[in-house]
């Protein structure tokens, strides 16, 4: 009886060894691909960390990124991949990553996954909710003062975010990371079709069709602006003149412009005017502008939690005089953000993401 028991124990032990050993062998084999950053965006450089287990027993190990093959010569090994459209000439919206290792015993192990590059940072990449407001220098000192005071009215009233900068505009702010960590950027000054004049000289004109503000904006340089306000004439003009690009078209990343920078690369909403803006100055004991009230009302609605597009359009309708061609407010946005207030937190999206492609909308005021 004891012998029987002993035999049974041996039997179980041998069975266990036979079952577990292959599992242990396979557990010790395979290819592992990790990447940094964890959630890469279009424009970023991605580092793939490839680790091949029992590399010395591998016949070969390879990694394919969107079909491009890399032979693995050592383990661990790093593979660098640049998704910057300016560097690569390609606009990557996703990366198909596949790794494969074949062992001397003929066993093949693989790993594959897809990286979506069209989802950017969440609404705020840091805990601070901040905004900056910029006034363009102008040869007309009255005009400059008027804009300064209007901006000051907003600064005095708006409390949902903390103020980062209230200063003079500069063309350089459109090509550097001035918007880094700021959720709302406001520019006041002169404008033209998809252009903003960031100073008093002709060289200060900035063509918005050549810059970008979202968190995918420029390779290796991120701004992460959610809301962009352009208090300037004609900048957001929707008219389709010959030779002039309607602002809405900048939304699209067509084959022709896909490699260029675009203002909508991750921005949620852009607010401005279809044509001209006009302010009425009241000069009694002292002079003041209805523009001051406009900025106050806009700030109040934002603070109250009204959705951003309506805060802009309501403030215009209530506080500015609207005529044909004057003070016709416009807001461009993605449908995803239609009802968002300044307190909402959402991801950013670009071309290639279903929440971006074909999801651009515009709200505007017209005289009927």
């Amino acid at each position, binding site marked *: 009886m004891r012998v029987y028991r002993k035999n049974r124990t041996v039997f179980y032990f041998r069975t266990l060894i036979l079952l577990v050993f292959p599992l242990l062998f396979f557990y010790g084999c395979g290819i592992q691909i990790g990447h940094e950053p964890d959630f890469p965006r279009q424009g970023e450089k991605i580092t793939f960390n490839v680790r091949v287990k029992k590399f010395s027993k591998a016949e070969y190990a390879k990694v394919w990124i969107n079909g491009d093959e890399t032979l693995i010569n050592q383990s661990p090994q790093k593979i660098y991949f640049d998704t910057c459209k300016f560097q690569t000439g390609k606009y990557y919206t996703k990366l198909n990553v596949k790794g494969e290792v074949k062992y001397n015993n003929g066993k093949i192990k693989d790993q594959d996954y897809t990286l979506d590059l069209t989802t950017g940072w969440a609404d705020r990449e840091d805990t601070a909710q901040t905004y900056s407001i910029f*006034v363009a220098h102008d040869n*007309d*000192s*009255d*005009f400059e003062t*008027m804009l*300064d005071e209007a901006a*000051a*009215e907003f600064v*005095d*009233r708006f409390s949902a975010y903390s103020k980062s*900068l*209230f*200063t003079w505009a*500069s063309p350089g702010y459109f090509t550097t990371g001035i918007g880094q960590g700021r959720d709302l950027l406001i520019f006041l000054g*002169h404008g*033209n079709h998809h252009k903003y004049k960031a100073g008093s000289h002709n060289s200060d004109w900035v063509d918005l069709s050549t810059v970008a503000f979202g968190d995918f904006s420029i390779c290796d340089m991120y701004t992460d602006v959610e809301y962009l306000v352009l208090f*300037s*004439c004609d900048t957001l003009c929707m008219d*389709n003149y010959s030779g002039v690009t309607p602002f*809405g*078209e900048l*939304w*699209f990343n*067509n084959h022709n412009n896909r490699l260029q920078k675009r203002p909508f690369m991750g921005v949620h909403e852009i607010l401005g005017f279809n044509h*001209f*803006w*006009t*302010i*009425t*100055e*009241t*000069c*009694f*004991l*002292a*002079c*003041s502008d209805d523009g001051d009230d406009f900025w*106050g009302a806009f700030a*109040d*609605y934002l603070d*109250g*939690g*009204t*959705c951003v597009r*309506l805060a802009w*359009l309501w403030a215009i*309708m*209530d506080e500015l*005089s609207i005529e044909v061609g004057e003070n016709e407010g416009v807001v*461009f946005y993605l449908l995803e953000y239609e*009802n968002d207030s300044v307190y909402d937190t959402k991801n950013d999206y670009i071309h290639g993401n279903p929440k971006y492609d074909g999801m651009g*909308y*515009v*709200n*505007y*005021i*017209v*005289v*009927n």
Partner: protein
Amino acid sequence: MKKQFILILIILILYPMAINADLVLSDKDQKEIKEILNKPVNSYQLDIKKKADIFKKIDAWIGQQGDWSGKGVKQIKRDEYLLRRLVTRKNSPILPGADMPDGIVPKVPFGMIALQSDAKRIFYKELTIPTSKKMANDKVEERGRTFIERNGFCLQTEIDKIMRTRFLLLQRQKIMEQGVQPRAKTLSQEVIFVREIDGLEVFNSKQVVSVHPDSEEILAYRSLNWTPIDNDSAKIPAYFDFKEVIEKIKKAYEKSPYTFEIKKIQLGLYQAKNIIFPALKICVNPIIEENANKPPLKNLVISLAKDLNIDFGESDPKSRIEKSP
């Protein structure tokens, strides 16, 4: 030496003229201003008690639109105003007539905004449901007028009444690629009631009603600087003289690099905190080359009355721009 001195003197005189802009006041413009200054216009004290009665009605009506005392109500209280916002799922349509269709049934919670200040009452529903329908302007006006009159939100008298109406559309359009222009849908239609006293427009008074063209319900109502007047307080104030008025107008544009011409001169009234007084509105156009960039326009409203005790309320604090980084 003497010649050089004269030359420098001429340059010094001409230099400011060269950099300063001008406002071109034609003979016709000057004649029009002179005629206006010869036209006596009454100023009126505001009737604060009647205003309180009307605002009480508006506040009571806004109070019925939702539970403003609930936990979900956000309040912003500052010295001069109170702004409240509540989020609700239930839309109780505001229908001025009994023969109206059903209101909008929201699929998601929506916000309502109520703002109270010394001279304003504002109520908005954040319901922006796009529709292909559009109401005729006269129908929008009728809805708005019925709403205001039935609720007693606007005290009209023989001399103080709704003068005319203006109409706006709030539209939504899908952004399509070049060449494809989808039809715009309407979010709301706005009727603006402009005020007249003694046949003259009050520049800063208006009442606005927003109507949804599909359900025909009222989505928003705003009473902006429309305070009843004390009819017995009519008084013709002393005017500034022609020279003083011209000086004021010129001064408003003198620092601009552009030259302006007058587009429109309008005699009207302006409501301050305590009084309504005669004022002059100037709309201008810049004189620029055909393809040059047009500057933003600054229209001007100046008081014609002097020696009146006008209260413009607390002036807003003006923080100045910081130095560039």
